[in-house]
């Protein structure tokens, strides 16, 4: 079963605490998981959802932007629109960086 997973990274607001990754999915309302690193988050989420659904799951993770500006230190919204002629094509890039200095 394929699960569309919304992945977030957030600052904790505490300079001494590292940022945290967390995930949710509309396919399992109320479910969320968190971890200090992305790889660990995906591993935990896959195991947890397999348990909950009683079936093997395949995750389709998608990083969620936190802002709409494509600028330094922010999340760039997917910019799939037209680009200026002669330039490189627009890229659908989401950058969430840095949510926190830890």
């Amino acid at each position, binding site marked *: 079963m394929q699960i569309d997973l919304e*992945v977030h*990274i957030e600052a904790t607001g505490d300079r001494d605490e*590292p*940022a945290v*990754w967390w995930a949710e999915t509309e396919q399992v309302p109320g479910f969320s998981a968190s971890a200090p*690193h*992305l*790889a660990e988050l995906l591993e935990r989420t896959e195991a947890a959802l397999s348990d909950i659904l009683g079936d093997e799951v395949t995750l389709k*993770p*998608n*990083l969620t932007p936190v802002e709409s500006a*494509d*600028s*330094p*230190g922010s999340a*760039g919204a*997917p*910019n*799939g629109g037209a*680009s*200026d002629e002669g*330039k*490189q*094509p*627009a*890229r*659908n*890039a*989401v*950058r*969430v*960086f*840095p*949510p*926190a*200095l*830890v």
Partner: protein
Amino acid sequence: MEIVTALLCDSASTREGLLHVLGGGITRLFAPEIPGAVGVTLAAMARMDEEELDLPHEVNFHVEHNGEIVQQGMGGLQVNRPDRLEDGERLLVPLVIPIGVPITSYGRYAVVVDIEGARQEVEFWVLHPDEQVLPPIG
């Protein structure tokens, strides 16, 4: 994934997949007082393979000085597949990371950026302003 280039600059921004760098190539920063802090921006380009598109990636950076980490941070990056991708084409993705570096002593500092094992290191030196050699006037 490969970080093909990285440099320190005054500021940088990204638009339409392009990296706009202002005052790039910083290797020296001057701090009149210790302890203090300096601000610098890391501008980098990562090259992504096709199978790395449409997936989130973890980006980490840290700043080293005298064998210790004096600053670190973490972020996320995802590049979605463009409408058209040539056979074998790999995308270049710009990254901009503004960093505030606490300065505890003068000397060499190194900014290390890591995207899931792809790594680049850029060094800079923090000096007292008295050590700044200005060009002769006239």
